[in-house]
């Protein structure tokens, strides 16, 4: 058979492309010109402080707060999501109240509250309400601002994440529960062995987002007050030297750097769980970087993505 002559037509002219390119180039040029010529940036101070030991220690503390808060948040989230799906109405009520309270008040307010823990409860007493006291301890013994910042951030995060976990569990086909139930499996076994592994592809990617968000939320712990993390430390150095702008830039550079690293992991995770790919692509084994097991889950179509899932504090 003779090969047909392929269509070689001129594309539709798109003058708007050039207009936009012109605008972007102009704005970018103005910005770069400013960066180089405006002396107020004080790039020499930025360079001096970028690897200042105080700044590096603040970066480490920011990471500690982020990781600590996320570990506590994820633990709380899974516990609360499972409790909300429980057959026990008391447990469901407790989980609902937790989410209601921690989502219903600003994180800043909560953090100040945790800072006032010792004022509100100078001693912690174990006993029967209105009855005898069994055990009592001075709150100052265990009060550490950093620990309470992690508790404050983690409990708040747990409330948001638990909605993500719950949406993930609900996204798994009801037939999976039924099949496991019909085999005589208990609810808890079904949840952990059958439903949760499938829900992970809905739960994990937004959790990555939440981690990136948490990195920045740690800058609020001055409310406790914790004075070790990046925002506070750079701000303090800057104010002391009457050079707030270059130190803000130092903070911004570090936040952007860590966020960029996290974003790389995030996109790896999304790939691993095959987010954004449809069943037919997974069927043909087209998704690079995606595990065989995850492809099998995706291709089976037992997990339904929830478009309203993204939850940001």
């Amino acid at each position, binding site marked *: 058979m003779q090969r047909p002559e392929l269509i070689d037509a001129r594309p539709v002219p798109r003058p708007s492309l050039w207009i936009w390119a012109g605008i972007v180039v102009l704005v970018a040029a103005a910005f770069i010109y400013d960066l180089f010529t405006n002396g107020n940036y004080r790039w020499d101070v930025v360079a001096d402080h970028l690897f200042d030991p105080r700044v590096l220690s603040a970066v480490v503390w920011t990471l500690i707060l982020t990781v600590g808060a996320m570990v506590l948040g994820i633990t709380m989230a899974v516990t609360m999501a499972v409790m909300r799906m429980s057959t026990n109405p008391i447990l469901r009520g407790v989980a609902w109240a937790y989410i209601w309270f921690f989502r219903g008040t600003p994180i800043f307010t909560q953090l100040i509250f945790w800072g006032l823990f010792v004022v509100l409860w100078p001693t912690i007493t174990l006993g029967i309400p209105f009855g005898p006291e069994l055990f009592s301890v001075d709150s100052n013994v265990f009060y550490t601002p950093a620990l309470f910042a992690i508790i404050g951030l983690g409990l708040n995060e747990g409330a948001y994440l638990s909605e993500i976990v719950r949406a993930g569990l609900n996204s798994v086909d009801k037939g999976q529960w039924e*099949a496991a139930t019909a085999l005589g499996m208990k609810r808890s076994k079904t949840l952990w062995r059958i439903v949760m592994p499938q829900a992970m592809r809905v739960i994990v990617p937004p959790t990555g987002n939440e981690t990136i968000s948490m990195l920045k939320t740690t800058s609020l712990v001055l409310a406790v007050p914790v004075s070790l993390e990046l925002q506070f430390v750079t701000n303090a150095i800057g104010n002391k030297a009457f050079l707030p702008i270059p130190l803000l830039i130092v903070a911004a550079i570090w936040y952007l750097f860590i966020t960029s690293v996290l974003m790389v992991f995030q996109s790896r995770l999304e790939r691993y769980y095959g987010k954004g790919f449809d069943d037919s692509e997974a069927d043909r084994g087209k998704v690079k970087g995606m595990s065989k097991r995850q492809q*099998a889950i995706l291709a089976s179509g037992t997990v339904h993505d929830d478009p309203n899932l993204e939850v940001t504090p």
Partner: protein
Amino acid sequence: MTTTPMVDIRGVHKFFGELHVLKGIDLQVQRGEVCVVLGPSGSGKSTLIRCINELEQISAGRLYVDGELMGLREEDGTLYRLSDEQIAKQRERVGMVFQRFNLFPHMTARENVMEAPRQVRGLRKDEAAKLADEQLARVGLSDRADHYPAQLSGGQQQRVAIARALAMEPELMLFDEPTSALDPELVGEVLGVMQELAASGMTMIVVTHEVGFAREVGDQVVFMDDGVIVERGEPRQVIDSPREQRTKDFFDKVL
């Protein structure tokens, strides 16, 4: 000689809110018998077999499997609900196969079959694997043991689902429209496995639209419509020379 029927359903009703789905069902299925339930969509056939393994709670009546009251305990005229654990225990003796297979997609065929023996009966991994391979061989899928469900055809998936149910060594197998989700050319392999299972003496209740299967394999055919059993009896009698007008109308349409 009288023996306890494998399934004994007495005056069972089921309501979903105001919706009256089962309106007084009486049915006995003897040990080793294959009972095929036919009827139009929405007649309550699926609900009936889902009640047998307590995926749905019955609203009235009594339901016995091998003489054991399902879901309830009766003592001095008072009924007590069984706990989730007790109900799970009762379900172990009843295998179920679903219209949409419901295989666990993150597990290979072998792992699917191993799961309940491991988690419910507490078998060791090597024991469960051996059992799984036996059951997969029984449904003719030894060469597919390491495949994920998504890598199998619909017919193969349904055969794995049958093997998964058989691995719990049930005394009764329930089939809820096992071939309705399959491409026509794949129906035969599943019906073939079910026919072999029937020949091996398994007690089976099969909800299906496959009239041919009912005629060939069924010992008893039950025709349901609008929540009641309209007619029951020998397959050939019910299908080919029904006594009731409603039964006749249905088979006139489907045959």
